[in-house]
């Protein structure tokens, strides 16, 4: 094991890395946080956090022959590529400072301490740029999972704006749309007329008109039945 024989490294500065996480908000006080994608999916962490092994407390992460610790990739492009995977489509991209004990790999790090420096939110599931975060319909005990949504898809949903999410994180971390994230290969709605957003007032008016038409039809049917009865 060549790596284990190498002298421990002591870099002058912490590492910058990129990773995906699920944005969450506390049901009680609205505080924001993040949940991991796989192993760390059941734990919520804030903007600064110390890793803990989910298997045992007898060692400190990261440890060889265990999968514990925070993970990050060296490359922003690789993190974006990871976000294309089906199970990661709702995740947000974090830029982190990785410090503490670390194990360095070809493409990234496992490490013990993390500071989130920026949150980048990818596109809505429809392909349009996200304008906020909405309830994803999943969560952990005490925490609601969030997902990126655009203005159209989020029109009739409770939305946490990027600024609102940043405030809930403590106000020190920028939360922005990931402008570099490739959405759909074409423009949203390309080749199709823009149907516009559903208008709640218009839907209500149409419903009332339909009820009126039904009432008129019932009235006409009753009159028709009376006439038929008179002729027989």
């Amino acid at each position, binding site marked *: 094991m060549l790596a284990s024989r190498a002298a421990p490294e002591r*870099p002058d500065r912490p590492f910058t890395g990129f990773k995906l996480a699920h944005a969450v908000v506390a049901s009680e006080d609205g505080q924001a946080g993040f949940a991991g994608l*796989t192993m760390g999916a059941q734990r919520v962490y804030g903007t600064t956090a110390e890793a803990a092994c989910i298997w045992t407390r007898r060692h400190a992460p990261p440890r060889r022959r265990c999968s514990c610790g925070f*993970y990050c990739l060296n490359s922003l492009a690789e993190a974006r590529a990871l976000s294309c995977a089906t199970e990661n489509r709702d995740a947000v991209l974090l830029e982190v400072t990785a410090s503490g004990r670390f194990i360095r790999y070809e493409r990234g790090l*496992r490490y013990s301490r993390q500071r989130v420096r920026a949150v980048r939110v990818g596109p809505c599931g429809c392909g349009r740029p996200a304008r906020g975060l909405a309830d994803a319909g999943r969560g952990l005990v005490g925490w609601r999972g969030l997902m990126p949504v655009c203005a159209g898809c989020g029109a009739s949903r409770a939305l946490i704006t990027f600024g609102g999410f940043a405030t809930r994180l403590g106000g020190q971390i920028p939360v922005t749309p990931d402008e570099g994230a490739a959405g759909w290969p074409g423009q949203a709605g390309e080749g199709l007329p823009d149907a516009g957003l559903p208008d709640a007032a218009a839907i209500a008016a149409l419903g009332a008109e339909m009820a009126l038409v039904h009432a008129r039809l019932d009235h006409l049917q009753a009159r028709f039945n009376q006439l038929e009865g008179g002729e027989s």
Partner: protein
Amino acid sequence: MQLGKEVGTGFVSDDAEATVGEEVAAPPETADAPAPDASALVASEPEPTAAG
């Protein structure tokens, strides 16, 4: 999350952490050292597969 083969271990402190609440964080992607490129070292450890 596939990170590839292990190429080194160590410890690094985050001196900025103590002051991050008092001052504006440095611009992303410029303040900290990027994770170094893979070296020629090869480890026999299994590749980690989970994201944390």
